[in-house]
């Protein structure tokens, strides 16, 4: 055994010589290793400090050393101050553990310049599993490292730019929202002023017909007020949920009428509409509900009127459908063309490109409006 081992050791040495001198000529593998552009070395772990016992020309070209300067030395002369300690430690572990490893490590040439070395080391053992040498190949990957670093830097720069732009846009949006709120605040204060003016005027009037006419005007202004209050309460000041508006409106009109025997029946899906549509929709719904309250229910001898007013809102594909119904006296198919309320409803419906129809609900009246509305999911729209 001992004998064999010594022989192999000696062979290993000789192989080095042989590679340079004789055997190389006859051995195509040795010739290939000597001549390849891939830098390669062999070290002998059985000698003290695992020295280099073979280095090909590519290794010498890569590192700038002469052959006699590297033979017999441990590879660590390739390391320098900027070499990553953790990488060195990983190498040491692989050598101690007799396993192969590959690692990118910063190495130094003889002239002190650096290069990124994609190092691959593998142990070579004989058939009996005894470690003979380490084979190592080096590949200069400085270019790859440079572009990796450039890509990382580019990415960081890009991310920073995106972040800055996002912040700018968020600030702009915030400023826009504040401004919108400010304008909205004034609109609402002015609506309150208009309502106050009408109320003050009404106090001075004795004539019942004139008072009634101011009351109708006040109702219309207040429908807009209710809608604007809801518009501002929604998260997005450009849109509102008309079903919230309808709830507020009918409870307000019912209590204001003082007719406790008239009930509301609401069947409301949440339907979001844009601010431009809000005003005409608010006015139409107000006209229809006040009409039902004023005209549909005849008074009992005790002065009370009984009945139901229903509002339904739904949104089948791209439409907002509103239905205002009552179970009162009905309109007997006579839809006035000339009265102001009807003209207002029809003009507003035209503005909304809506279809509107009065139906005999026997008992009572059912008015159905279908308004083209944009898709409901905001992510999909705009």
């Amino acid at each position, binding site marked *: 055994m001992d004998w064999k081992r010594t022989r192999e050791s000696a062979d290993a040495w000789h192989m080095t010589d042989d590679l340079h001198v004789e055997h190389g000529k006859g051995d195509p593998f040795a010739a290939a290793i000597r001549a390849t552009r891939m830098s390669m070395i062999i070290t002998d772990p059985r000698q003290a400090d695992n020295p280099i016992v073979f280095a090909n020309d590519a290794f010498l070209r890569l590192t700038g050393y002469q052959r006699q300067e590297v033979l017999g030395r441990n590879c660590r002369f390739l390391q320098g101050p900027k070499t990553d300690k953790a990488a060195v430690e990983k190498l040491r572990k692989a050598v101690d553990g007799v396993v192969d490893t590959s690692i990118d490590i910063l190495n130094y040439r003889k002239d002190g310049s650096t290069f990124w070395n994609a190092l691959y080391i593998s142990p070579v053992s004989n058939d009996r599993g005894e470690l003979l040498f380490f084979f190592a190949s080096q590949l200069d990957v400085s270019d790859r490292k440079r572009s990796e670093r450039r890509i990382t830097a580019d990415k960081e720069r890009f991310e920073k730019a995106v972040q800055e732009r996002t912040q700018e846009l968020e600030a702009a949006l915030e400023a826009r929202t504040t401004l919108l709120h400010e304008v909205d605040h004034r609109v609402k204060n002015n609506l*309150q002023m208009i309502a106050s003016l009408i109320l003050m005027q009404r106090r001075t009037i004795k004539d019942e017909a004139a008072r009634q006419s101011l009351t109708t005007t006040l109702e219309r202004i207040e429908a807009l007020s209710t809608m604007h209050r809801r518009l*501002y309460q929604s998260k997005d000041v450009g849109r509102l949920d008309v079903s919230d508006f309808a709830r507020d409106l009918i409870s307000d009109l019912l209590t204001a009428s003082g007719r406790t025997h008239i009930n509301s029946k609401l069947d409301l899906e949440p339907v979001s509409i844009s601010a431009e549509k809000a005003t005409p929709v608010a006015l139409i719904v107000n006209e229809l509900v006040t009409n039902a309250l004023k005209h549909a229910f005849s008074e009992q001898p005790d002065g009370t009127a009984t009945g139901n007013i229903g509002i339904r809102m739904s949104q089948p594909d791209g439409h907002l459908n509103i239905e205002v119904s009552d179970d009162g006296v009905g309109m007997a198919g006579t839809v006035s063309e000339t009265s102001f309320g009807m003209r207002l409803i029809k003009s507003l419906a035209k503005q909304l490109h809506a279809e509107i129809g009065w139906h005999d609900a026997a008992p009572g009246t059912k008015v159905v409006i279908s308004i083209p509305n944009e898709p409901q999911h905001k992510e999909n729209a705009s």
Partner: protein
Amino acid sequence: MIEPLKVLIVEDEALLAMELESLVEEAGHSVVGWATSSAEARKAVDTTDADIAFVDIHLTDGPTGVDVARYIGERRKSMVVFMTANPKRIPDHFAGAIGVIAKPYTMNGLLSALRYLQEGVRRPPPKSARPAGFTLSPAFETVWAPTS
């Protein structure tokens, strides 16, 4: 018959204050003072004896309504209801106020709010339904409108 309320109005718009005063009085309550700035409001608070103060957020000296509410709260003399077109300016804790009547309110909305507040101040918790356009502060929500 529940005892009517004595009301202090803190509002910089004369027109709105005037009309509010008429509505409050028509509903059977009385108005004990009207202030247009935070300084006037402080003086009115010290010299009158109101049950409830309707306080706008934006007064002639800026957005000082919340300070006025805090001042009233510290003196423990009356209760506060904000009355503003800009409810988002109100801090989350409402500076101790009962809630907010959002402008523009409707005439009926205001009358309902007065009825609700009269019940709430005289015989809490109020029996009537909370009117549309009236929002309770979180603190009063738990006392006046506990979710059964």
